[in-house]
């Protein structure tokens, strides 16, 4: 999806707002928001959309206006509403609907440590897939412009780089136009090095390089 979330190389976003002493949360409400998001993650019904697709689907003007946690809260509410875990009337009133059953929170304080420890790797060490590229090989990122989620940023499409590392086999994360996974497509993920002058032309730094981690199907032999 060529939405504004894919902002690598854009100008006009203003100065960096740097707070040298920012702690875990910039404001206390962000901690509550993040804890809610983590804690309510268990509530999901049916086929689940890619959560990055959900974030990227926020209309561009809103995406840029909202902070990180506001975007996450929005997608969480969308999911809770879609799964009928909450109703719009409840959101409007701030109170449970009359007669609605009271549940038992699935996540308890004792489970929090495990939540942090849980490894959610998408690497598929269980399958053997031959690698099409090897270190040092020249590749070119494909020029694709799908309406679904993809991890090939716009600014690298069509550019030539060099494979520097093979990270093994991972499931492709790309989705269809509705946000659902394109299918189980395990393939190698490579780190590819691009010269800034290849990516940005004469406006790129002469001694700057960019590395990105790219699924094999994003790449062609150069």
């Amino acid at each position: 999806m060529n939405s504004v979330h894919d902002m690598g190389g854009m100008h006009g976003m203003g100065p960096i707002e740097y707070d040298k002493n920012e702690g875990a949360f910039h404001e206390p409400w962000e901690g509550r928001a993040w804890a809610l998001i983590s804690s309510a993650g268990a509530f999901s019904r049916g086929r689940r959309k890619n959560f990055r697709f959900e974030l990227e689907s926020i209309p561009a003007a809103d995406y840029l206006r909202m902070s990180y946690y506001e975007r996450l809260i929005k997608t969480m509410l969308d999911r809770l509403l879609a799964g009928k875990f909450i109703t719009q009337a409840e959101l409007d009133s701030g109170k449970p609907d009359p007669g609605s059953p009271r549940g038992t929170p699935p996540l308890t304080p004792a489970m929090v440590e495990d939540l942090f420890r849980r490894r959610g790797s998408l690497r598929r060490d269980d399958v053997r897939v031959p690698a099409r590229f090897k270190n040092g090989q020249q590749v070119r990122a494909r020029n694709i412009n799908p309406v679904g989620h993809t991890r090939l940023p716009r600014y690298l499409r069509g550019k030539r780089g060099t494979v520097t590392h093979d990270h093994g086999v991972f499931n492709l994360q790309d989705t269809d136009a509705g946000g659902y996974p394109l299918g189980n497509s395990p393939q190698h993920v490579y780190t590819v090095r691009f010269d800034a002058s290849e990516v940005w032309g004469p406006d790129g730094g002469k001694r700057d390089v960019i590395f990105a981690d790219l699924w094999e199907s994003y790449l062609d032999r150069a």
Partner: protein
Amino acid sequence: MLAHSGVGQAQEPRDRVQQAVPSDPALRVKALESLLVEKGMVNPATLDAIIETYETKVGPRNGARVVAHAWVDPAFKKRLLSDGTAAIAELGYGGSQGEHMVVLENSAKVHNLVVCTLCSCYPWPVLGLPPTWYKSAPYRSRAVIDPRGVLREFGLQLPDDVEVRVWDSTADVRYLVLPERPAGTEAMTEDQLAALVTRDSMVGVAKVTVAAGGTA
């Protein structure tokens, strides 16, 4: 009427909108929490435990210990640079968003900088949650096209002959920068060294200095 109609507000659209949001996010999140608690979907004690974990257990102090250990133990440093995930696990750190760690060594000739242009991917087990600037559009957009200008905004002016390497976290690998050990720290203990290492230096937007050890 004129004063109220605010002719000049067209000058500051950003401020205007921020002021104008009818209820601030803090109030909305508070109301949402009490709704979800009343419905029995979340447990407030669980929320407290999650927040406490990020404030006291999972954060940049973990990364700082990894860095300090690498500075004093050459064999560990070698393992860290060849298999970041395994070496970091030796110190007890790992988990979600740290499953595939790569550690990048800064030197007098090479400066590494980490970004996630598409979202805000970040190595949680060693750095905690990303700071606001890392998640915001100015950093995400410009780090890849003007890394030296971005570093200057953080107060870091690099010599022209230093190679800048920008790492865009587009897949499941997460990056940690191993900053240069500052001169004049030969006599320091590992704990003293760890206290010097800032979060910003492990993302690559700052160097470690003897004076600058702080909370970031």
